[in-house]
């Protein structure tokens, strides 16, 4: 059975491009152009995954509100935000919406499709990990499960977005080794990334750890190069 995917995007050209690309990958796609349509659509049926633009017409925060509504109906539903500015990443973190990932525009359609399949797979994997089997790997006090995209620090789960998770996974592949900005940029799997974007993501990851453990200082800056995970 084909997975159902909902896209909420107000620009018709971009919307039809997304619909065409995702449909080609074999998904069943429904597209809405504003908040009211989307919400009434969710009344009828919930999708398996939602892709939300944040700004819809005049409503600056419409994406966030749709997300809130969706998560109130199904807490584990994968949600991808399409953002236009890096400071919106901060906003998404700040709102603590259970968003799974965010993609800065302009986006690569191939990458979008890959992200969709990956998130759906992870969603399934998480359902299974509840039933016992775990692929988690321990790095010092941190447990990281690549399959289910789950991270915990000192046995307390940390909710990271997809991008943050991939960057963290890159960082801890060889603990103690510096990881360059370029490598981290690849990990974001986005087309246009500056050092600033990496710094923003890293800061958010650090904050999420520090919320649980104020003493956390494993992520070190390698000025002029990148970052390093130091267990000490």
């Amino acid at each position: 059975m084909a997975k159902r995917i909902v896209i909420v995007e107000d620009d018709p050209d971009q919307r039809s491009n997304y619909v065409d690309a995702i449909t080609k990958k074999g998904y069943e796609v429904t597209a809405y152009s504003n908040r009211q349509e989307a919400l009434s659509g969710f009344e009828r049926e919930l999708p398996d995954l939602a892709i939300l633009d944040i700004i819809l017409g005049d409503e600056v925060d419409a994406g966030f509100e749709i997300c809130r509504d969706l998560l109130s109906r199904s807490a584990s539903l994968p949600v991808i935000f399409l953002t236009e500015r890096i400071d919106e990443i901060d906003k998404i973190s700040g709102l603590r919406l259970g968003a799974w990932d965010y993609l800065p525009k302009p986006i690569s359609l191939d990458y979008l499709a890959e992200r969709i399949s990956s998130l759906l797979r992870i969603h399934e994997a998480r359902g299974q990990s509840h039933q016992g089997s775990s692929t988690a790997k321990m790095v010092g006090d941190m447990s990281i499960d690549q399959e289910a995209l789950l991270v915990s620090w000192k046995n307390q789960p940390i909710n990271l977005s997809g991008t943050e998770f991939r960057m963290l996974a890159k960082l801890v592949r060889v603990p103690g080794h510096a990881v360059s900005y370029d490598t981290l940029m690849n990990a974001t799997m986005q087309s246009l990334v500056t050092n600033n974007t990496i710094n923003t993501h890293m800061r958010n990851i650090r904050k999420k750890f520090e919320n649980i453990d104020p003493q956390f200082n494993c992520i070190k800056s390698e000025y002029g190069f990148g970052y390093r995970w130091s267990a000490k």
Partner: protein
Amino acid sequence: MTMTVFRGPRLATKLFFLMSLALVVIPWFSYLYLKEMEGFLVDGQANAQLLTAEGISTLLNGRPDLFYELPLSPEGYEQLYAHPLTTPIRIDGKNNDWEEVLDYNVSFGSQEPDETSTTGPNQFYLVLGEHNDQVYALIQVKDDKLVFRDRNILRLDLSDHIRITFTGQNGEIRNLVITMTEPGVTTAYNVDNDWRYAIQGIAENRVQGFMTETVDGYAVEFRIPLALLGSTKHFGLAVVDVDSTETRAIQSITGTLPSAGREAFGLVLLKSPEVLRIIEGLGYSGANIQVIDAQRRVRAEVGSYGAQPTQESKPTSSTWYLKISAAMRRIPDALYRLIDVGLRDESDTAEDSVIRESLAGRPSFQRHYTQAEGETIIAAYPIIAQDKTIGTVVLKQNTDRILELRRDGLGRIVNFSVISLFIFAALILAFSVRLTRRIRKLGAEATGTIDKYGRLKTNQLRSETSAGDEIGDLARGISSMLARLHQHNQFLENMPRTLRHEINNPLNTLSTSLQNLESETTESGKQKYLESAKRGVHRIGMIVQNLADAASLEDALATEEFEVIDVHQLVESYLGNCRTSHQNRIFEYRGTQREVLSEVSDYRIEQLLDKLIDNAIDFSAVDSTITVGMTTDATTLTLFVTNHGPLVPTNMLDNIFDSMVSARGSNSDNRLHFGIGLYVVRIIAEHHGGTVNAANLLNGDGVTIQVNLPLYKRAIAADASL
């Protein structure tokens, strides 16, 4: 849209009112001070007077004998005083040498004829004087018809004559008649008790007199030696009028004592000469000293305290000055009258009460005001003898000198206040006019810097920026505000232009690739154009990303969290990474090796170094050396990056840190150059409370860019305490 603005009092008005308040208060305080001063002086004078009175009374203390020369209770007698004269009187019947005592003349006889009385309408005036043991008398008699003595008649009472009664040397009563046969020298005879015949045939030539006719009668001047009068030194006097040469009957007898039944016609009291001698030497100018006995008779008096005539103001050539000074003089006088009127005690009882107090044995003084004499101070001190008050010394002095002092002082204050009021008013007016004009000018210029569409027309103010006061500060503040605004505006204005310039190339790549793609049929050709189109898109994306970063840099910085880190370690680590990432340059570190603590955002310092190194690489040759250094002083750390290469034109050194300003001549390497790099450096440095500056190397082969950042304060404090 019109805006209603509350328009209160203008600056000039406010200043003026405040100042004039001060100018009113100052003279008022001066006046109060003057008043205190005057009170003090008056008190001082009163005390001095009392002391003087005490001193004089001390001289007279225990000398009751001084007052014994008079019968102590001359009740019922008219008291006639012989006033002390300073010069002898010429016996010539004229009153011209009597001037100093003429005012004391006493009138006898009533104006209206009285049927029942023996005293007729024959009125006369009497003045007595005493000099050099002679008693002088001037009698002016009103007489409608003069009857002279007939030499052939022996009786002496048949013509107009003057009768004198006195107690002689041996205590016997003696009668004396002064008669005249014609105007001129008079003759005196000792007569019997009936006043008819002379006792001896010869005249009493020790009594000399002279008679003159006057308009309404006659005047007689005569003198009697004191020796003749005996010890009691008093005498009575009567004027006898005879009007008819036929009957020669006595028409009327007018005596110094109105009662006809008494032998003595009246008593002439002489002032105590010894007391007078004592106090004469003590008299001083402007003071009046009286010695009064227990019967409240004046026994001696020296000096006068009358107000001295005020000096005439010196004549000056300019009349307006006179008018003004007269007007000025009037102001304090008016003030004086206004304020002082309440203080005045015009009752005549003051002197009485002082004397009464003093005679009761209590020294006292009082201020007393009369219209004629002005303000006087009366002080009295009792004279004691054998525990009894036998008299008092009364000292009167007017306060002219103090009043003069006060009036002068008040005048000076008023003059000074008026003049300073004018001067200050003029100064304040000038000052406020200048002030408001400056403010208005500044306001007009500040308003004029922005046109009605909100566009900045200039990046600085010209007026007032060199002034040293608050307006200068304001002008400079506005000017620097304008400069920053202008810079930001320029960034925004340049953005589209730069964007168009930078985006046009990749856009052109994209558009030509798409056109080729449309007409291309082979799969490999399509792939080629797709690739170039993708590159164009990526380039546009990077441009937008960079611009967005720069534009939102200040916003992003505001959310940045600062922490205290070792900047030296950061720089060292950064340079280590630079050496691997930029193999074609040599990086050298110079400067401190110590820990350099500063409160910064490490990402941003890293970004700052990125831009500085990028800039240094762009302007230096391959394999050249880039020197990065750090020095510290008490409060700041200085980070500098030096590269060898082309110089920055001198006129650009100041604005090289502005956005969209680039010293690059051409864009040969096809990299992105928005002139944003050093702008980012400046924004980050300023956000950390630091400054930036650029300079060409002195040897002319490179450029150094300095960033000054504040050191961590607690570290400074700790260093200082070591």
